[in-house]
């Protein structure tokens, strides 16, 4: 058959010509597809085209600056296509980097489009944060060299005045990533220096204010509990820190003394369902979408055993909180039960346009005003018991959770304007050891107008 068709050279030449015609037509169609000429035909090509356009815009744009609430520079760039310089190491983890070799991280990754979208002068948008550089730097200095985190909030608004995180032995120098990239990515640092405010771990006794508001709202604040140093629930016996015995105590004294047996007993009596509801009203167990990233915390009380629920009442068990959650506990108590959403972006704007304006948002009511006032008063006494000067007007609660053979020390505190939360992971310290750092931060905060 084929021999008959292609018996002559002319027929074969015709076949060659037809082959080239077919090839040309197929190729023309391919080229239109490959070049993603028509939007929607080649989805992968479309996204590549967009990224090319972005890359080109980036190359022609001077990366926008990031400033603190006073307009003081945090990052700045002078040349198009060049990565911005960060002026404060305390902001390294927060602002992150946007690097052709090492990738993107932090606020500079999250807001890349705006930082790289040029105005008429080819400058990207400026991000003004709610932070104050000197508070941020101090907060960082307080935790430097530890696996720590500091959160400073303004109670009435939820504005974040400082958000610092650190690791032992390595700093995130975003201006010089090549020098310590390997250390940053070592297994000792969990594979990468994750911002500690995103790490959800057992909160320890800083959970007690939450349980306390529940006990108060249940009308059991004045109920006397006889602490013998041991509370047995199911097959498990709970003890106080240091095997202490407090005798007959009520809620206020239990908060000051951080009495584990009291809280395990009361939680067991009140039940998992109510504690879970109360935790949820403090935004524990749900994802918080914040302007610097999502915060994920966990509780699993409904599927926990009685022992685990009792442990959750004083901050152990199947309960994982981030430093932001712990700070929110303090903020809610300070605000009479009202939760204000934390935010760090004050505004994003160019000389021509404002893209975003941060504002105060309510996250709802966590507890009654009365219970908040009661717990607040108890926390004031607790702060004094930690050695904090009464005149400073600080309310506090410490926490020391056991996580993988080490402590997670936490200190949540507030005064009439600010909430300060310090957390140190993988440490031998106890929560009250962080009080000194908190006090120094409060002293600096008092200088703010």
């Amino acid at each position, binding site marked *: 058959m*084929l*021999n008959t068709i*292609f018996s*002559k*050279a*002319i027929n*074969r*030449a*015709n*076949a*060659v*010509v037809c082959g*080239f*015609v077919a*090839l*040309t037509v197929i*190729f*023309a169609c*391919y*080229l*239109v597809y*490959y*070049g*993603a*000429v028509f939007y929607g035909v080649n989805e*992968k*090509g479309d996204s*590549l*085209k967009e*990224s*090319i356009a972005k890359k*080109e815009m980036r190359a022609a744009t001077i990366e926008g600056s990031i400033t603190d609430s006073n307009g003081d520079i945090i990052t700045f760039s002078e040349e198009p296509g060049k990565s911005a310089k960060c002026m404060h190491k305390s902001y390294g983890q927060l602002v992150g980097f946007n690097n*052709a070799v090492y990738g993107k991280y932090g606020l500079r990754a999250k807001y890349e489009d705006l930082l790289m979208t040029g105005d008429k002068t080819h400058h990207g948008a400026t991000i003004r944060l709610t932070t104050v550089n000197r508070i941020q730097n101090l907060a960082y200095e307080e935790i430097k060299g530890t696996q720590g985190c500091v959160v400073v909030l303004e109670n009435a608004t939820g504005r974040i005045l400082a958000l610092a995180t650190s690791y032992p032995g390595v700093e995130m120098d975003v201006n010089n990533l090549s020098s310590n990239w390997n250390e940053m990515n070592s297994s000792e640092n969990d594979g990468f220096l994750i911002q500690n405010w995103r790490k959800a771990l057992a909160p320890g006794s800083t959970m007690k204010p939450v349980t306390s508001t529940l006990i108060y709202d249940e009308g059991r604040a004045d109920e006397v509990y006889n602490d013998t140093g041991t509370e047995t629930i199911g097959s498990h016996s709970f003890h106080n820190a240091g095997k202490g015995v407090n005798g007959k105590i009520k809620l206020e004294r239990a908060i000051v003394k951080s009495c584990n047996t009291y809280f395990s007993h009361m939680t067991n009596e009140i039940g998992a369902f109510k504690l879970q509801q109360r935790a949820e009203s403090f935004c524990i167990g749900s994802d918080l979408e914040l302007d610097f990233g999502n915060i994920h915390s966990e509780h699993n009380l409904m599927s926990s055993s009685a022992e685990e629920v009792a442990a959750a009442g004083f901050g152990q068990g199947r309960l994982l909180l981030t430093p932001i959650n712990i700070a929110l506990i303090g903020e809610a108590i300070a605000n009479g039960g009202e939760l204000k959403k934390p935010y760090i972006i004050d505004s994003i704007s160019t000389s021509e346009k404002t893209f975003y304006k941060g504002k105060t948002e309510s996250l709802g009511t966590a507890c009654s005003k009365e219970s908040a006032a009661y717990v607040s008063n108890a926390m004031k006494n607790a702060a004094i018991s930690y050695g904090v000067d009464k005149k400073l007007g600080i309310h506090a609660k410490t926490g020391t959770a056991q996580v993988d053979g080490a402590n997670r020390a936490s200190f949540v505190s507030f005064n009439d304007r600010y909430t300060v939360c310090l957390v140190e992971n993988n440490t031998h310290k106890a929560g009250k050891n962080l009080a000194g750092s908190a006090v120094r931060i409060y002293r600096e905060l008092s200088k703010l107008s």
Partner: protein
Amino acid sequence: MNKKIRDIAWILGMNVVFIVLLVLFAANRELADPMMSIVIPMLIVTSGALVYTIHFEGDLVIAMSAILLLEIGQMTQVLINEGVSSMPTILLFVSPVFGAVCVAVISYLGKKDLGDEKKAQKALIIVAGGVVLITLILLTIGRNINGTKAWLVLGPLSLQLTELFKPLYVLFHAVLWKSSLSHKKRFIFSTAMTLGSAGLLLIINELGTLLVILLMWIILTFIYSEKLLDTAIVLGGTLLTVLGGYGVLGLVYSRVKSKILLGEKPAGLSKKLYQIFDKLHQRVMIFTDLDQYMIEYKDEASRQPVKAREMIMNGGLFGSTRRTTIPIENSDYAYVGLILRCGIVFAIVVLVLFFIILYRSLLKSVRMDNRFESVMFTGAALGLILPTFINVMGTTNFSFMTGIAVPFISHGGTNMLLSVFNVMLLIWGTAGIRPNITLPAPAKASSEQKADTPEQEEIPFTR
């Protein structure tokens, strides 16, 4: 005479209009001096080419297509280089002289009698010897440029000698099919020449020309061999050789690599094979996974295809004034440079022009009774279109990339010389071929011719 003048005037007028359009286009793309870089050289060269064509009564469609390609090529180079480039302009004037000399040689060879088997074999050996000689020259004093040792540098001149493989290969087959060798011998000689050339090109690392040679082998066998089975053997053999060769090279590669990792130094040949596979494999990987390369920068080798795709995307249908830099844009990536500046539509028009040349040449050449000329003209047409398709498909990731120039469009002296020669050969070859309707041959002469060339009876064209 009046008709000739009318033809010249009409065609020249068309050419002037086209040059003006090109200049307007170039000006729109912010070109500095289109008068010196495009108008003057193009008017002189193309007008001369048209007069040549009309004088010899060559195929005006072929001539016009080639001239348009020449003009587009000049404009592309001027746009890429952002100004006048003296070397291509000088070459525009030198190429026709070179082409004329070569056409004269082919004309002389076409008249040679190769009826004697010994004479034919001698001629074949001389041509094959030319290929071996080029390889030896390149291996001894050749210069490695852009990864291939295909260049001979003589002072300011850099000649890509491997370009000569193509006309020599075609010449070999032209002699082969004109000779009175048996079908079996022809097939053996053709296979030996192809495999020999392929081996030599592999040593020089010139994969582009190697691919052209293999495709030429398949197409020439398909058109001219009496048996279709030959084509099946050639096609199957080529595929098996390519795939088998890739597998063997891969095997050698893995062995040599393990030796290198152990700190041993590989021997000369295995090192060479290692390098060849490394280059091949890298290109295959880029071809199969370019999207990934687009997302994350992997290595320098992927830069060109990644940038090429960016240029195609930026060029869109009708081109753009955006600037994207790409290594060796004016030679291997000239077609992509054309897409960026003039768009996909214009780039497809370029392919269509090449196709027109192939169509006109092929359908006339296969009707010729002189097999030597017939194969030469088919080979010349293939010599223009095959590198074009290989290049445009490689640089646009339709197939894997091999370094080869697009005739007329890419910057390259040797390429320009041979492209102009090919076109001049085609114009000369198609001269005088007209439908043989009004002039039937005398009865006696016709019967003699039929005995010599059995196909003649069914051919509506004669020379």
